[in-house]
C-alpha cells in the first residue's frame, strides 16, 4: 500500500510537470497579449518594452524560460509575479484559497447529503411517485445553468435586491476568521447553487448504483440472516454502491477548487476561480499559469485520496 501511494505521488509530480509545460506552451503559441506590451501601457515605447522583456526573461529561449519557471515552482514554490496586480501569484492564490475552499466544501457537504439521501430513497422505491418526482427535479436542476440559477436565487432571496429578502446578497462574503456567523450566512445561497446541479447528478448516480447493488446475492444473504433492513441498506448496500460516487466526488471537488468561477462571479466571492477569470480577461499569464497548476494539484491529490479511501471502504480492494 505504501509503495502504491509513493508511486501515485511520483506520477502526480510527473503529471504536474506535464500540465505546466502544456499551459506554458499554449500561452506562447496561441494569440494572446504580449506581457511586455501590457506592462508597458498605452503608449508603446520600444526601449521600455525591450527592458521589460529582458526583466521578464522573454528574450531567453523557450526552454530556458520554462526551466527557470519550473525551478521556481518546485524548489521555491514561486509561482511567478503578476504585473497586472503588482503582487506575487502565490500570495494572490493563497489569499483567495479560503474563500474557494469554503464555497466548495460547504457545497460538497450539501450535495453529498442531499444527493445521497434522495438517491437512496429513490433506489429503495423505484418507479414510485416519489422516485419519479425526485428524478424529474434532478433533471431540472442539472439543466439549469449555474450562472442563471445564481442570478435567480439572488433576485428571489437576496436581502438587498430579492423579492423575499432573507439571505445576504452578492458581495457579502466574509472570511470565517473575521465573523463565523456572517461567513456561514453569506455562503448559504452560493452553497445552494453549487450543490443544486451536483446533488442532482449524485442522486441519479446513487440511485442507479444502489439499485444494482441491492440486487446482489450477498444482499439477499444479509436479509436471510435476519439483519434489519436499515443495516442491510446502509452497511452492505450503500457501502458498496458508494464507490463510483467517491470517484467523481474527488474529481468534482478537485475541479471546483480550481474553477468555481461562475458562482464566485455572480456572488462576488473572491476565490481562485474569479482570480483565474480576471487574469484571463487581462491576459495576466502568470496568474493563469499559477491557478491552472494549483487546480491540477488539487485534482491529483483528490484522486490519490480517493484511491486510498477505496481501500478503506471496500475490503475487496487491496493494493500490492
Amino acid at each position, binding site marked *: 500500500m505504501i509503495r502504491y501511494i509513493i508511486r501515485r505521488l511520483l506520477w502526480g509530480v510527473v503529471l504536474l510537470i506535464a500540465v505546466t509545460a502544456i499551459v506554458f506552451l499554449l500561452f506562447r503559441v496561441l494569440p494572446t*497579449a504580449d506581457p511586455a506590451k501590457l506592462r508597458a*501601457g*498605452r503608449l508603446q*515605447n520600444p526601449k521600455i518594452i525591450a527592458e521589460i522583456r529582458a526583466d521578464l526573461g522573454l528574450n531567453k529561449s523557450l526552454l530556458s524560460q520554462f526551466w527557470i519557471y519550473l525551478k521556481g515552482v518546485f524548489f521555491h514554490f514561486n509561482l511567478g509575479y503578476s504585473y497586472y496586480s503588482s503582487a506575487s501569484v502565490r500570495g494572490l492564490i493563497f*489569499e483567495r484559497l479560503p474563500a474557494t475552499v469554503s464555497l466548495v466544501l460547504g457545497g460538497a457537504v450539501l450535495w453529498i447529503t442531499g444527493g445521497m439521501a434522495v438517491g437512496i430513497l429513490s433506489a429503495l422505491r423505484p418507479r414510485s411517485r416519489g422516485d419519479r418526482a425526485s428524478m424529474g427535479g434532478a433533471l431540472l436542476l442539472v439543466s439549469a445553468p449555474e450562472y442563471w440559477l445564481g442570478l435567480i436565487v439572488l433576485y*428571489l432571496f437576496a436581502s438587498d435586491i430579492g423579492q423575499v429578502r432573507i439571505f445576504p446578497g452578492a458581495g457579502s462574503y466574509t472570511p470565517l476568521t473575521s465573523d463565523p456567523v456572517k461567513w456561514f450566512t453569506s455562503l448559504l445561497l452560493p452553497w445552494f447553487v453549487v450543490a443544486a446541479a451536483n446533488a442532482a447528478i449524485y442522486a441519479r448516480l446513487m440511485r442507479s448504483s444502489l439499485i444494482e447493488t441491492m440486487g446482489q446475492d450477498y444482499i439477499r444473504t444479509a436479509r436471510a440472516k435476519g439483519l434489519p433492513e436499515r443495516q442491510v441498506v446502509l452497511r452492505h448496500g450503500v457501502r458498496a454502491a458508494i464507490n463510483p460516487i467517491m470517484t467523481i466526488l474527488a474529481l468534482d471537488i478537485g475541479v471546483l477548487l480550481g474553477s468555481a468561477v461562475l458562482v464566485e462571479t455572480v456572488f462576488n466571492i473572491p476565490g481562485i476561480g474569479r482570480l483565474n477569470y480576471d487574469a484571463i480577461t487581462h491576459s495576466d499569464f502568470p496568474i493563469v499559469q499559477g491557478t491552472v497548476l494549483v487546480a491540477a494539484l488539487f485534482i491529483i491529490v483528490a484522486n490519490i485520496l480517493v484511491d486510498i479511501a477505496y481501500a478503506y471502504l471496500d475490503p475487496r480492494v487491496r493494493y500490492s
Partner: protein
Amino acid sequence: MRWIRTIVPALLALAAGAAALVLGACGSSSTSADAGLNTPQGVLTPANEPQGGGHKGGTLTVLNHQDFEHIDPGTSYFSNDYEAMYATQRPLYSYTPNDVSTPSPDIAESSPQISSDGKNVTIHIRHGVHFSPPVNREVTSADVAYALERAANPNVANPYYLGYLSAVEGIPTASGGPVAGIKTPNKYTIELHLTEPKAQLVAASLVLPYSAPVPVEYAKRFDASKPSEYGNYQVATGPYMFKNNSEGKVLGIGYQPGKSAVLVRNPNWKASTDFRPAYLDQINIQIGGDTNVIGRQVLEGSHMVQNDPPAQSIVKLAYEKYRSQLEISPNAGDHYVAINNSKGPFTNVNLRKAYWAALDREAMNKARGGSLVTVPMTHFIWPEIPGFQAAGGYAGPKYDYNEHPQGNMAVAEKYVKLAGYPSGKYTGGKTLTVVGATGNPEAEDAQIANQALNKLGFKTKLTLVDKSVMYSKYCGVVSEAIDVCPNVGWVADFGDGQAVLNVPFNGKLIVTNGSNSNWGLVNHQKINEAMTAAEKVQGKEARAKAWADIDRELVAEAVAAPYDWDKQPQIRSQDVAGVGDLWNVGSWDYNYTSLK
C-alpha cells in the same frame, strides 16, 4: 396569486436577456440647452450637479465590476484609476468636476508662468501641504521633481511621459535619475526648461497624476524593484489615502487586488490648502461581481455608487424607473472604425470616403445603446474639448460622405467610381482582414462595419478577439497589416485638442516594432507637419483653432470612419448626492460626492 406577480416578471426579465438594446427607443424629452447632447429630462449631468453644500461624514460604498489597472500615480491612466488617484493624490493642477478645459491650481499655488519663447515653465507650489503617514513631512518642489523624473524609470513605465514631456531637456534619454531640464531653485519652486517651445503642452499635461509629488527618500527603495512597488506603499497628499499600516504598506490592507480597496481620510490633509470639500469620511470599494446584480444593488440600495460603466440593461432600468439616480456625462471619448491608411486598398482616399459614406453609424450607435449614451460622431474632436465648435460642432464639416449617419450607398458608390472602379463596387482581388473585439456591443458593431465593406464589394475576413489582444497584437501593429479595426476608441488625457488627435493620427509616432495607438497607421505628411506646428502653439484659443484645423483636415482625408461620441452613464443610490467628473467620463468624484 401574488407571488406570481413578483417572481414571474423577474424570470421574464432574465429570459429577455441582459443586453436590452432598445435604449434608442427611450428617445428624448430633452430640456438640455445643448441640443446635440440630447440629455433627457430628469437625468443629471456633471454640468447640472450641485458641487457644494454637501452633508459631511459617512461612508460611501462603491461597487465596481472592474479592478484598478494601476494605483501608482506614476503609472495610472484609466478612468477607474483616476477616481482613486485624484482623491488621494494632488497633481500640480486639477480640474473641478464640471470643467474639462481650465485646470485649477492644486499643489501649485497659481497658474504656471510661461516664458515668452515658450521654452520655460515656472511653477510655485503651496506651502503647508503634507504627505500622509508614515512620511508626514511637508511637500517640497523636490518631491514634484522626483515624481516627474520617475516617470522615465522603466520600473515605473509611465505610458505618456514621452508624449507630453519629451521637450523637457534630458527627458528623452532619462531613465529615472535627475533630469537636466527639471530644476528646483528653492523648496517651493520648480522650473521646467524645454528644448522646444512647447510650454503650453507641457503645462497642460501637469493635470495628470504623474505630477503628484512623491517623497524621494521614501519612494526610492520601492522604485528600485522591477516593477516599482511604490504603488503598494504609496503615500497621499489628497483628502484621502489608501488605508495602510504603520510602515506604509497598502497592499493587502487598503487595497486587495481584485477584491476591495478602502480610502480613509488623510489625517495630514488641510482643507485650507485645497479646493476640494471632501465630505465623506471613508470610501469602501468592492471589486467584482455580475454587472446586472451590482446595478440593482446600487439602484435599490443605500449609500452606494457604481463607478464603472453599468450594464446596458441597468441603464435602461435606471432610465425607466430610477431616473433621478442616473447621470449621463458627455466627453466620455469616442469610437471609430480605423482603416489602414498605409497599406492596402484604403491608401486611396476615395475608397476611405466611400467607406465613411457607406457606414451605418446610426445602427452602430443603436448597438451601443442609442441616443441616451451616444452622439453621432462627425469629426474627431468631441464636445467639451476646446476646438470642437471650430471643427464643425455636432453637424461636422460639410462633406457629402459625412451627411448621412444611416449610410448612403449612392454617395459611397460615387467615391468608389472616383477610386477607379467604374461599376461602383470594389473589384480588386484583395480580401480585407477585419479584426474586432468580442462581447457586446463590440461584436455587433464589428458585424455592421463588416457589412458596409461587403456592400462596397470588398471580400472580408472578420475575426473577433478579446479587446486587449485586439489592441496589443493586431490593430496598430505594422507587421500585421490589418485593414480594418471597427472597435477602436480614444479618451483624451486632458482637455486639449492635441490630447485627442495627436496619438491616434500622427504618423511620426508610428513605431514599426511595437503596437501603435494610431490604429489606422495614418501617416499623411501635411497632417504630420500641421501637428508638429500645432504642438508649439501657445495660448488656449490659438491652440483650439490650430487643432480644429487639423481635425478638419483629418475629415477631408477621411482617415477613419467615426461613429460615436460617447456619453457615459453612471448610477447611484437614492441617498447619495453624486458629483461626476466631466473630465473623467462622468465618474463619481469622491472629493465632491456626499451622502444625503
